[in-house]
């Protein structure tokens, strides 16, 4: 009876695990395997692909930009999400505000790219500017710019698109965490004369550090997906390439080079993992200290 039950558990699990095995576990190992092979995957080439990865200037630029994305997007999104959560918790129309700030989550990266390319649209003077940003810039008396082709700074303008999407995500989770806080410490602080600003930053925020770290980690995990934004806004031109886009290029250009593509995929994973571990460890430490 019990033994039969044990077998039956695997029966329930089998279809799901089979799919996970075929679509995630097997490819994971196969990608590492392919990264040590040539473009067709037939010939073992040792570490040649990794040596190429470290020496190729285009890949290096992409690594630099990818790191920049990983370092800039999660903190800013989390921080803005925290501010939005705190503000919307204190007004009667907070629910509406949150729905509107969360809305970009429903929009595809390509759709978001269209929206923001229109914001950044540039017309040479003396034509009228139809992009919002350049209209504001010219109204302030400055010269309009072709924002997405300004080397280096264009990275930040592309990141803004992801920040716009992720802030709502962060806000929703952080708001739920704020809501779940016990009210007694907050009320005590208010009775002691703490100003609202102090209550938020000194009392509420420290208590939700765990959730902040979780949100931060989740956004780190979403950053490798920026492939769509870069592909549709600049396709990596003007020094804005990222690893995910490079990988896509190597996978499909000229019949595909599975060796180099796989190597870039491994590099992508290697970039993300330390940041994730660091965040997870911090979260655990704060959790332990907090309880």
């Amino acid at each position: 009876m019990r033994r039969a039950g044990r077998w039956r558990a695997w029966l329930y699990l089998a279809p799901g695990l089979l799919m996970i095995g075929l679509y995630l576990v097997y490819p994971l190992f196969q990608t590492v395997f392919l990264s040590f092979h040539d473009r067709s995957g037939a010939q073992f080439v040792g570490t040649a692909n990794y040596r190429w990865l470290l020496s190729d200037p285009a890949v290096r630029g992409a690594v630099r930009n990818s790191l920049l994305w990983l370092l800039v997007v999660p903190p800013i999104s989390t921080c803005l999400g925290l501010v939005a959560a705190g503000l919307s918790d204190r007004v009667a129309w907070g629910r509406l505000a949150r729905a509107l700030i969360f809305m970009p989550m429903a929009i595809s990266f390509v759709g978001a790219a269209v929206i923001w390319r229109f914001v950044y649209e540039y017309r040479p003077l003396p034509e009228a500017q139809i992009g919002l940003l350049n209209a504001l810039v010219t109204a302030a008396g400055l010269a309009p710019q072709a924002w997405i082709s300004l080397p280096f700074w264009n990275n930040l303008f592309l990141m803004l698109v992801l920040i716009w999407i992720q802030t709502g995500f962060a806000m929703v989770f952080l708001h739920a965490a704020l809501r779940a806080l016990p009210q007694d410490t907050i009320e005590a602080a208010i009775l002691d004369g703490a100003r609202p600003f102090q209550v938020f930053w000194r009392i509420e925020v420290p208590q939700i550090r765990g959730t902040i770290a979780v949100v931060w980690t989740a956004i780190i995990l979403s950053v490798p997906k920026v492939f769509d934004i870069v592909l549709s806004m600049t396709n990596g031109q003007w020094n804005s390439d990222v690893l995910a886009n490079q990988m896509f290029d190597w996978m499909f250009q000229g019949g595909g080079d599975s060796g180099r593509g796989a190597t870039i995929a491994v590099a992508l994973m290697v970039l993300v993992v330390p940041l994730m571990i660091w965040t997870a460890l911090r979260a655990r430490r704060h959790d332990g200290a907090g309880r």
Partner: protein
Amino acid sequence: MRKAPHRWIIHLTLALFVGLWTLPTAGLFITALRDPDQIAVSGWWTALSPSLQRQMIRTPDPVGAMQAGGLVVIEGALLSSPRDRVQAFGVTSIAPDAYAAGQVADLGQGVRLQVGVDGQYRLSGPDGFTAARGQRIFFTALRAPSLTLANYQKVIFAGGMGRSFLNSLAVAVPSTLIPCGLAAYAAYGLSWMRFAGSGLVLALVVGLLAVPLQLALIPLLRLYNDAGQAFGFDPKTYVGIWLAHTGFGLPLAICLLRNAMADLPREIVESARLDGAGDHQIFLRIVLPLCSPALASFAIFQFLWTWNDLLVALVFLGPQDDTLVLTGRLLNLMGSRGGEWHILAASAFVAMILPLVVFFTLQKYLLRGLLAGSVR
């Protein structure tokens, strides 16, 4: 609500925040409804105020025109909308504003041109007067804001967005339903059936949450191509992409559902078991209905994700026209019609409308399930 002395600062900051977050989308939405000519010359924020436009038309040739009291008379309308107003007109490009609307212009040799504020013009002259290819009339008109659905009509029927909409549906719906089913069974097995190794399986599933999807693509693409060659089928099929989305979505689905199922009160399941209910009955009749909020939340999330996905669709369906999904079509348009904002804006909204509707109508369920797992 807590009392605070400077509440207006909070309201103002939040309003600014919301404004910044919605303005880009609003701008594109308004642009999609505007006339292509107006988009090119003025910002979308001017769309709701009247705009001055300078235009030129040619009247028909006077030869063979209507005779009235010994005069040749040509009449017509400069404006198509009754809400537009002519301010000034002229007959040369050097002085296009020479006469105010309502005035009668004497063009010499007895030829007169009258243009009313409403855009009606009357050109009259002695019998036999000529104006090769018609008389030119320059005019400045104050155009009332006009919004149109023509851009949408164009992209949906002629631009292929309609077709792509159906393709996206064909991808997203099964890619949402299949993992829901598989994950429900797996989550039940993990939460309500004890067996050696369950902890290990769960750890594996949670660990896979962190693996970027990109890591799986190249081997899968090769596998699909090899299998297609070996068994003689096209590697790029809807079934192929359904299964891929299923595989990529399962870790999250299993985690969410297992958390929800593990939280159910033990007594309910135990008492059903004592009443002689089998595992499958307990699963279908008791556990699954109680977990429907979590299931709904995952389904919404997965639908939004598969609908909005570009990468998996490009890899597993390819770029050919008949299976191109909305995101892929939009990407192509950005390349080929980069400056034509009326096309791009309308297309973007065709691609966004369904996820936005799903998001705003089902947001409650999405949040309930996602947050249940996170805040504890």
